[in-house]
């Protein structure tokens, strides 16, 4: 059984190796290698999860068997393993279900790029989840950013490149802040391993030294990771990034790319700085307030959209707010509610994005005029016009012209593509928080966590904001759902979904219902995992 302790390390390595292998393969082969690698990672993570749950323990793994402070460490407990399992499962479902869209959106000779990026993203996410070392964390934060950026840019239209640059700018600002935070922490404590830093901070707290620098460190790391995961005042990059990339990458970005940072933040709070110092610093109060504002403002913006992808992107802003608000509660119940909500969102958003792709594929086609195409070719932001790959540009623009996500065009899509519309319906139910779906159980635990806080103001703020944001979400999600099931004048075109698309979306739906019904077990595992964090 000791052998299982190698698995977290293996899974990171498999992801990275998969990416390397994909770089020398052609599109189709790269696709299968990527599927296989992600499947293996899922099984590895699952067996580690079972191991940690059965033994109810956590373990620290020395990479290359060098002890600290020279060696690099991985820590795997129940929380980490659960997150890794969920993440790898979701990645698998997304790349399988979205394979068709990947083929359509990228040039055939470059399809392997997408799977390289997937491998990098998987590796980075797993490393962020497992790492026990702040510097490794920083390195993988950057790898995660680069992979995410690649996902936005891979479509190679003017708009996607513009939004990739926007994303890059905001993200680098975030990583810069995190880096400064880590550097300060290193100069104060002289360590990079989480446990060592934790011990020194305890000693510093007892002696009362370095109060202000520590506060600055907490602030910098929190703000840095908040920017990278798109908390409310820093959310500007989210809508463009999600709506200008193609469906598979929007699904990966919305479901996973920002979630690794949030998990890292929780880990840093518990394992590096310690909850007591965090609570003393009032940074959590600010996180809490930002989360509350995000919950409302994300939804308010979403109400004003006329494009379902942008609507869902703003809905993400609101759900990131939910997660940060739970973290801001500062209790263990709050943290596990935050993680449950994180899972729920990670399972639901990709499902919604893939469903929307199916819906949009049967919406009326809007051909671009010849002038518009000409203009698009001349677009200075388009890489192709510089490198001269004119054919590829044309196919990309054609794609833009085909799939319309506008409200006016999706009318009646429920009849044209019933499966995709049904999936969207389930996703909306989950997001709004209808009982028996994932969203309800996470909302339930959020509210119960709120009753556990000391202050009555926090309780009421959470309760009322939850109610208001639910009403807002009903407003925009059901507006779309009604549109989907309206009668339209369009001729019924028989739309056959690919089997892998149906397979992956059905599993997403099943996962949603599973979380909705069995959230109690998940919460138990999470709570015992978080207890072992300290």
């Amino acid at each position, binding site marked *: 059984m000791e052998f299982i302790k190698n698995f977290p390390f293996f899974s990171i390595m498999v992801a990275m190796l998969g990416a390397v292998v994909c770089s020398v393969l052609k599109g189709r082969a790269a696709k299968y290698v990527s599927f296989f690698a992600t499947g293996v990672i899922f099984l590895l993570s699952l067996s580690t999860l079972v191991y940690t749950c059965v033994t109810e323990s956590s373990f620290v793994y020395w990479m290359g068997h060098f002890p600290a402070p020279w060696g690099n460490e991985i820590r795997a407990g129940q929380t980490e393993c659960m997150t890794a399992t969920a993440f790898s499962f979701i990645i698998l479902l997304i790349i399988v279900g979205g394979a068709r869209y990947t083929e359509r959106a990228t040039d055939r000779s470059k399809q392997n790029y997408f799977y390289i990026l997937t491998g990098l993203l998987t590796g980075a996410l797993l490393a962020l989840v497992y790492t026990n070392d702040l510097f490794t964390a920083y390195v993988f934060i950057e790898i995660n950013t680069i992979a995410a950026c690649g996902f936005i840019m891979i479509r190679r239209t003017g708009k996607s490149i513009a939004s990739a640059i926007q994303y890059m700018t905001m993200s680098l600002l975030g990583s810069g802040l995190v880096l400064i935070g880590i550097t300060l922490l290193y100069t104060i404590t002289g360590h990079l391993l989480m446990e060592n830093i934790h011990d020194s901070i305890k000693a510093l707290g007892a002696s009362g030294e370095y109060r202000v620098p520590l506060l600055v460190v907490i602030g910098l790391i929190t703000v840095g990771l908040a920017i990278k995961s798109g908390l409310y005042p820093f959310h500007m990059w989210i809508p463009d990034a999600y709506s200008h990339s193609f469906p598979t990458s929007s699904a990966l970005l919305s479901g996973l790319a920002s979630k690794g940072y949030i998990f890292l933040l929780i880990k840093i709070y518990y394992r590096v700085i310690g909850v007591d110092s965090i609570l003393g610093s009032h940074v959590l109060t600010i996180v809490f307030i930002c989360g509350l504002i995000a919950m409302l403002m994300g939804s308010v913006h979403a109400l004003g959209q006329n494009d379902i992808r942008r609507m869902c992107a703003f809905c993400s802003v609101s759900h990131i707010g939910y997660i940060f608000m739970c973290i801001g509660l500062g209790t263990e119940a709050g943290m596990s509610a935050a993680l449950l909500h994180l899972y729920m969102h990670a399972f639901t958003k990709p499902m919604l994005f893939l469903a929307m792709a199916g819906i949009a594929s049967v919406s009326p086609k809007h051909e671009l005029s010849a002038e518009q195409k000409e203009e698009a070719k001349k677009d200075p932001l388009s890489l192709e016009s510089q490198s001269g790959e004119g054919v590829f540009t044309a196919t990309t623009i054609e794609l833009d012209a085909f799939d319309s996500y506008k409200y006016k065009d999706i009318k009646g899509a429920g009849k044209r593509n019933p499966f995709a519309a049904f999936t969207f319906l389930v996703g909306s139910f989950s997001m709004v928080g209808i*009982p028996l779906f994932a969203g309800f159980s996470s909302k339930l635990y959020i509210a119960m966590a709120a009753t556990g806080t000391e202050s009555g103001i926090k309780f009421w703020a959470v309760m009322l904001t939850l109610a208001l944001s639910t009403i807002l979400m009903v407003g925009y999600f059901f507006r779309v759902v009604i549109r989907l099931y*309206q009668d339209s004048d369009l001729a019924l075109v028989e739309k056959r979904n690919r089997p892998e698309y149906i397979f992956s979306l059905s599993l997403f739906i099943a996962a949603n219902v599973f979380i909705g019904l069995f959230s109690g077990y998940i919460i138990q595992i999470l709570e015992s995992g978080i207890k072992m964090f300290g």
Partner: protein
Amino acid sequence: MNYLLLFPVLFPVIYGVVSLRFKNMDRRKRKLFFLPALCLNSTVVFVLAFLDLEPLDLAVFANHIRLSLFLDGPARLFSCMVAVLWIPATIYAFSYMEHEREHLSKDAGWVNSFFAFYIMTYGVTVGLAYSANPLTMYIFFEALSLVTFPLVIHIRDHKSIKAARKYLKYMLGGAAFGFISLICVLIAQEGEYFAFGGIIDVNAFPRNLLLFTFVCGFCGFGVKTALFPFGSWLISASVAVTPVTALLHAVAVVKGGAFVLIRLTYYGYGTDYLKGSWAHYVCLFLVCATILYGSTMAVRETHLKRRLAYSTMANLSYVLLGVCSMSGLGLCAALLHMVYHAFMKINSFFCVGVVMQREGRSFVDECNGIGKRLPWVMAFFTVSGLALTGIPPFIGFISKWTIASALVETANPAFYAAVGVFMYSAFCTAIYMLSLATRAWFPPKANTVVYLEARKPDFEMWGPLAFFTLVIIILSFTSTPLVNALMALAAG
């Protein structure tokens, strides 16, 4: 054995989902398909009502977070009421929807999907009745909003889409506020199942906080009973077809809301804890405001269905008035009016439905002299109008008398004022119900306008009407057993 409780909840839902697949049933096949299922389900509900079953735990997530069904007094009453009403209402709908289909030139699938959702609603309503704890009740409460939504939007024209969006926003929004009180009850819950007198540990939270959550719950769940100022969805939803407005927006959905509030007050928080608190007076105030608003607007309104919708609003608040008196007699009065109003209102709605569909008249002033054209239908309407006004010996008088005596029994000046509001509302009821009957029988001037070529209502339409009228008359003279049973229930 107690797994039988699942049957009347799941069977109609599954049956409805399956029947969505059959798109091309004609009228005869449709009848053969749906009626036996309905009769079977109602029979099971009746049989269960006479059995003594253990509560059934479907799933246990955590300590108090579990899904359970059980049967107690109010559950028996509510489920039996639904079981009695659903069959005649569906029979009426067979004829009504067939004509509506011809009128709107829709296909058979349109009618079939209507009945599919209609039968699903049955299951969900019974589920609401059988819910054994707040969480289960909340789940069925939400499900009831969702499953009736396709029925509201069923005509799918601009007006009904607008009304349906409003419906959904109000329903789910209300549930979102009800969620606040659900959470507090879940945390403070002591017993596992609803019990008369309350199940919460009153010391789990500060008193004012708990009372505030009660007000949130009262308003949130009260959205379904069209509590002022959250009741305008009920008026907009009257654009739906008549079987929906009659059975759902006069009985199942709105009574479901009233049932939830009865559970919350008597079986959740407990009346001993609430009585005399500020929350009690806030609720009483809202209820009285609803009665005043609903009755006054019903007099002003000239559209037939909307007039009845305003009347429903006021009458539901009579039920809540019984709830607000927070005594055993009040509970008895609330349940009694819940049942009696169901029969009276569904009958009036169905009569108006005949007038609107078969004669093409939808405003009060168009109904002059209609008694000559539809003598039986208008006779049935007059009976339910008299009963609703509260003329002795009809059933409306019995339930209203009980409510008034429950209010007087509290010996509290605020409740005497409520009795005044109650009297005003009875006066308004006489105007808005009986003015229509008077116009029908004794037209002020001869009606010269020629309306649609009238199609006589067939047996499927007037049969249910006759049945309801008969029930009203029989209940009027033999209500003692029911009242006694309810008094026994309210005694604990």
